[in-house]
């Protein structure tokens, strides 16, 4: 079962690679590099010690922003979903935060706080937070009334409610926020790095972009995507499986 699951994905990825390789060798333009060229670019970046360092710097920014955005956004979102009053007050602010261009936030923060790390990370958090809130607000709205009543009658502690009632119900929404969140944060980190940091994948991408070095651009993108794919395989998918164990269709008793 487990091996077939992985092998399916490996097959899908291989097909993708083969298709890319075919198209690339057919077109044969430096603007659509073949897998091999991208791999060479990757190993060049690796050899010249930029790859790992940039990845680490960017990942660090991603992780910090992710944690803060998820925590704050999650709490605000759930509260908005639960309490109409909170929702009514915060909703217009949420809309503003959600739709204010990343560029604007980044610029304003850089202007006000200078080109410092804190401004960069704060910009990312402000960009991501409303997304998490919007997602978890729907989660908060869909809370099961009957289970809530049950937990009150059976005197569940706040901690028990959190672990056994709220978390499982929020789970799909948390997974959405996590998956699209990781992606979004990483994309914003790129813009932030592009506009005012001197290291990280975004900076390297920008350099490669300036000379239209598509192979290097793809190499950095793939490097980060691989990291996310690993997170997906070793953290998110096991969580998914664990969470679906109780469902009707599962083979678990």
């Amino acid at each position, binding site marked *: 079962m487990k091996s077939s699951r992985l092998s399916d994905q490996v097959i899908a990825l291989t097909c993708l690679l083969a298709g890319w390789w075919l198209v690339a060798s057919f077109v044969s333009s430096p603007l659509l590099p073949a897998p091999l060229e991208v791999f060479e670019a990757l190993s060049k970046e690796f050899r010249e010690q930029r790859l790992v360092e940039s990845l680490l710097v960017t990942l660090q920014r991603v992780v910090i922003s992710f944690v803060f955005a998820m925590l704050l956004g999650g709490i605000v979102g759930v509260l908005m979903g639960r309490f109409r009053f909170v929702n009514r007050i915060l909703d217009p602010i949420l809309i503003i935060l959600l739709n204010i261009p990343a560029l604007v936030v980044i610029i304003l923060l850089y202007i006000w706080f200078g080109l410092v790390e804190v401004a960069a990370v704060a910009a990312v958090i402000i960009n991501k937070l409303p997304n998490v809130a919007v997602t978890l607000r729907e989660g908060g709205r869909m809370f099961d009334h009957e289970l809530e*009543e*049950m937990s*009150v009658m*059976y005197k569940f502690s706040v901690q*028990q409610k959190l672990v*056994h*009632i709220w978390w*499982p119900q929020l789970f799909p929404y948390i997974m959405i926020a996590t998956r699209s969140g990781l992606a979004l944060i990483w994309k914003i980190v790129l813009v932030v790095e592009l506009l005012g940091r001197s290291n990280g994948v975004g900076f390297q991408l920008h350099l490669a972009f300036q000379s239209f070095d598509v192979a290097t651009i793809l190499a950095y993108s793939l490097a980060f995507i691989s990291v996310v794919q690993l997170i997906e395989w070793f953290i998110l998918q096991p969580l998914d499986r664990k969470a679906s164990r109780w469902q009707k269709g599962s083979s678990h*008793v």
Partner: protein
Amino acid sequence: MFEFHVEGLTLSQRQILSALNIKVNSGETHCLLGPSGSGKTTLLNLMAGLEQENVEAIGGETRRANYWLPHKPEIGYLFQQPRLLPWRTIMQNLLLVEPNEEIVLKLLEEVKLQDYVDYYPSKISLGMARRVALVRCLLLEPELVLMDEPLTSLDLPTAREMRVLIKRLVCDHPTRSMLYVTHDLEEALELSDSVSVLGNSPAQVIYNSRIDAVSRQELEMLLKH
């Protein structure tokens, strides 16, 4: 003795309950009968504090339109539906209420579900889920137990055993009171110390009597509308 007073309850612009009060003596069992849709569950929810209506008192303040005398007891509530956490196994569901595994297992044995401790609720039958919910309710030790039709969807012998269990753990308990909703007149007469019947719309108490003074004929008449 616990006495619950309702001045009325309106849900979604419709009056469900009219003014009524329910009295349960300490250590006794009171049975609540009434046709489907008469408002039994709503009344129980109100007693449990899950539903509430505020009325405007003189002076513009609001106060609750229902109250307990002499004070609100600690309440355990067996809901009409099992309401188990679908993402937790039977055992995990019960351990949330009573952390001592042995006690839980012993009660599970009494309802003949000791083999299903690791099942998720979606993998057991409705009757089994009801028994799990019953166990969960019996694990509590409240002053007043509210039970909403605990023995439906069970076959006769199982229902009889459950009844014995309830009798032993709740009815015969010297200080534990119970309010028991059922559609089964036999069950009511067997378990209870007093009986009332809910009827009309909005719901009123249309019959109320100690068990020894109950007129079975009158009860049957009333329950036939």
